[in-house]
């Protein structure tokens, strides 16, 4: 296969899979088998892409484009750099394991089709090389999420889905205006037809004021998705009400899209004004870390707990991205991947727990270690990984972020370090409450994780350990792309 066909294939395979799954909706289990096969093919394809990927100087590879409407500047244009590559792999891993670990047999064909479509549009976001196209995919993500939540979600899912949709839709409105503004500026500056091409729009010179406004517009869109405090308020209710697979995809995958967007469009597209916005963004990042850690301690149930923990972890990612240092940004990209994998694991474990007892309110859970030691053990692995235990994948990324932030923004880094301690506090406390102590009599008969369920989790644990011990293959691939971005930023070393 020719290498330039890889990205269109990555986009098309899940769509075809979704169509095939819907076509076979009458046959019992066929749709599910098709979906799992499709997601596996997608994973293989993304690894093939990684194999073909060359670190060229501009960082972007496999580019291809096709103009849809020159009047509007609407194009299909895809390209890939090391960062997008890593995110594409994360996408296919997440959806594959969400399918495997959180099967839901109610109207299964439609459910798995939505998941495959979600995979397609998420990959679309990561490979889009055009601001308008990115926006299209970014907005399209809402559709599968919305339908999965409203039709398969738990209590209050409809209200939560509405909140999620409106939050994100409104948040990204500014991004559309900002993108059009940039494109118009480009047209005024360079002439020619209107274009939203990423590389072209990087050439636009904006005044500092306009640049800051554009950044604000982008940052709101991505801050909602990520989430960054104070735009996170949709996430606990959404995580709590989403069906398990959608919850996994939202927390493990879609939150990374916010951080990816911030890096790709907030930072790399507007390098000259980073100096002006950094203090604010870093402060928000630190607040996210501390606030998330604090509220995670008081979370009512495990899903909300994951939401607040993610808020804190994504605060670290933002800290790294906005630090302006190459090491910090590399750490942030790595943490995006690592946190994705860890959350995939944690959420799957919580999903297993929900299969056995519907309620995962932290006040009700007690002594689960007794009846289900393996589940507790798996939870521990992911917990330790998030806390940053050396040897597991969370450590190296957080470490890089803090080192990077320390060299450029010492005080913020110091405040962030408190969050590392905080994460130990809230995780261990939650673990103690849920797994230690005498088991409630109703829970004593719960069965432990089955063989099949274990098989789903082992690969995730393997990634957690492997990247903890040996992160260099990933780091080597993202480093040139990250350096390309950070090199263009203004050297804004403040205290």
């Amino acid at each position, binding site marked *: 296969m020719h290498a330039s066909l890889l990205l269109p294939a990555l986009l098309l395979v899940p769509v075809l899979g979704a169509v095939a799954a819907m076509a076979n909706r009458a046959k019992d289990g066929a749709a599910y088998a098709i979906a799992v096969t499709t997601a596996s093919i997608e994973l293989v394809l993304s690894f093939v892409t990684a194999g073909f990927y060359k670190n060229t100087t501009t960082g972007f590879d496999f580019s291809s484009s096709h103009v849809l409407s020159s009047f509007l500047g*609407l194009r299909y244009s895809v390209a890939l750099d090391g960062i997008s590559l890593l995110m594409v792999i994360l996408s296919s891993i997440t959806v594959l394991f969400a399918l495997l670990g959180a099967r839901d047999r109610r109207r299964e064909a439609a459910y798995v089709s939505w998941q495959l479509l979600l995979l397609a549009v998420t990959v679309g976001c990561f490979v889009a090389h055009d601001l308008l196209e990115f926006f299209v995919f970014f907005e399209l993500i809402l*559709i599968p999420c919305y339908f999965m939540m409203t039709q398969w979600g738990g209590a209050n899912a409809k209200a939560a889905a509405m909140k999620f949709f409106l939050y994100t839709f409104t948040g990204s409105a500014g991004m559309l*205006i900002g993108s059009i503004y940039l494109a118009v500026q480009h047209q005024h500056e360079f002439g020619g037809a209107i274009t939203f091409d990423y590389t072209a729009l990087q050439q636009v010179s904006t005044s500092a004021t306009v640049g800051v406004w554009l950044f604000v517009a982008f940052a709101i869109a991505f801050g909602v998705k990520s989430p960054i405090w104070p735009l996170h308020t949709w996430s606990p209710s959404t995580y709590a009400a989403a069906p398990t697979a959608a919850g996994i995809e939202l927390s493990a995958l879609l939150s990374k899209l916010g951080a990816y967007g911030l890096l790709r469009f907030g930072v790399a597209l507007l390098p000259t004004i980073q100096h002006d916005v950094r203090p604010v963004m870093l402060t928000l990042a630190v607040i996210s870390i501390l606030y998330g850690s604090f509220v995670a301690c008081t979370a009512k149930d495990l899903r909300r707990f994951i939401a607040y923990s993610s808020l804190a972890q994504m605060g670290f990612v933002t800290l790294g991205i906005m630090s302006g240092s190459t090491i910090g940004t590399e750490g942030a990209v790595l943490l995006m991947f690592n946190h994705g994998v860890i959350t995939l694991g944690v959420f799957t474990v919580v999903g297993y727990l929900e299969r056995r007892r519907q309620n995962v309110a932290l006040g009700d859970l007690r002594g689960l270690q007794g009846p289900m030691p393996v589940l507790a053990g798996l939870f521990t692995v992911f917990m330790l990984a998030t806390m940053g235990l050396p040897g597991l994948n969370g450590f190296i990324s957080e470490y890089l972020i803090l080192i990077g932030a320390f060299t450029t923004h010492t005080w913020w880094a110091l405040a962030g370090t408190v969050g590392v301690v905080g994460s130990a506090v809230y995780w261990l406390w939650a673990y103690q409450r849920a797994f230690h102590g005498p088991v409630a009599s109703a829970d004593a008969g719960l069965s432990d994780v089955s063989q099949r369920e274990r098989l789903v989790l082992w690969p995730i644990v393997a990634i957690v350990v492997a990247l903890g011990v040996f992160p260099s293959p990933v780091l080597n691939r993202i480093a040139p792309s990250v350096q390309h971005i950070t090199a263009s930023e203004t050297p804004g070393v403040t205290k």
Partner: protein
Amino acid sequence: MTTLHAPAINYLAILPFLFLTGAALFLLFLTALTKNRLSTKVSSTVAVSAALAGFVATFFQWFEINHHGAITTASHAIAMDGFSAVMTASICSSLVFALLIAHDWQGRERFNGAEYQMLALLATSGSVLMTQANDLVLVFLGLEILSIALYCLIAFNRRRLKSSESSMKYFLLGGFAAAIFIYGAALTYGATGTTNVLGISYFLAANHLLHPGLLFAGGGLMMVAFAFKVQAVPFHFWSPDVYEGAPTPVTGFHASIVWGGAYAAMMRVMIGGLGTQIDTWRPIFFGLIVLSCLVGAAFAILQGNAKRLLAYSSVSHSGFILLGVWTGTAAGLSASAFYVLTYAPVVLGSFAIVALVGGVGDANHELEKYRGLARRNPWIGASLAVLLLSQLGVPLTVGFVGKFSVLSATINAGDVYGAIVAIVSACIAAFAYLRWTTGLFADENLDTPPLVVPWASRVVITLSVIYAIVFGIDPGLLTSIASHASLIFQP
């Protein structure tokens, strides 16, 4: 002795108009000459053929314009330019959809005969005339042909009190609007010495008015009349009642055909005629835009009735179209024309479903009745979801492209605030569409029998969904057409 010379007429320019009025007259004679009432099948066939013929005629107009340029004819009273051809094509194709919806409705309500088709053809011919009218007198003529037929259409269901009530309301207010328009046209004539749109433009470009009060009053009054027809806030108060009261096929007719004509005339008069005065009317226009966008969206989310919701939603959409006009640029005008192209089939598809759910006597228009529709009729429910999401402006539907083109043109004209207001209104209106969409997929009302979908409605729904998705994914063809939809003269 002086002889009266009839002006030369380019018949290609008025061919769609001739088809429509001709078919209406043909049906009239046929009704008079046959012994029994004409069956709906015959009258629908004749009317749909006329609409299709009009649609095809615009292709010939289009090629003529592309090869030999835009022209005016009949003493410069009628223009044939890219803009008129595109708007006429949109109106004629909308008529096909509207007639198909009405065909099923007539069957359901047992209205035999050709009256509905005749009135629809005549109203549409008025609308087509408005797209081409290059003279204020002709605009008025088109407006009246359209309105008078429309008053009858709205009151068509005489078994339903609301139908007559809303017709009366529309008649009174529409009469006022027409009077206001003609008064405005008279004052404009007084200020410029001509009723010809191009003449007004040339006069204003060549002369500086020392006392522009007369012109401002005339332009302002015409603007009010147009704002009434396109239901811009604060001239929209009739629209929810009329949308609700009119038989559903007429509501769909209104939201696409009447709209298209009114917008076309407004654009031609405001841009083509009074374009030199843009700095004067722009601020007022901006007020209309902000109010229409926000009031339409805010009230849409309060509605519990599908037709009233769509009425307020079209008020909000109207703000978007006005925004394109407001830019005063050729790109903005194209964007507005494009918006009409994207909106008309989608809203007709929606009304086709609303008509089906409404059932006999337009009884079931509460949003509650839509709960579980996608469970009972999966294809209809999914289609309505697509059409609503298109109106919401979700990417890969044509509604997004329409919104995007207007926003792009607005920002290109240097106004970010207008674009922000518009997009905020889209975000507010999103709630209304989403609530409706969510209800479609609820596991409720499962014991309600599924809808019976007659073939004509099926055709309309299928085509509009295909249209929404295909041109949502690749709008290249539509945008290239719209980008050539320019007025014959634009100052």
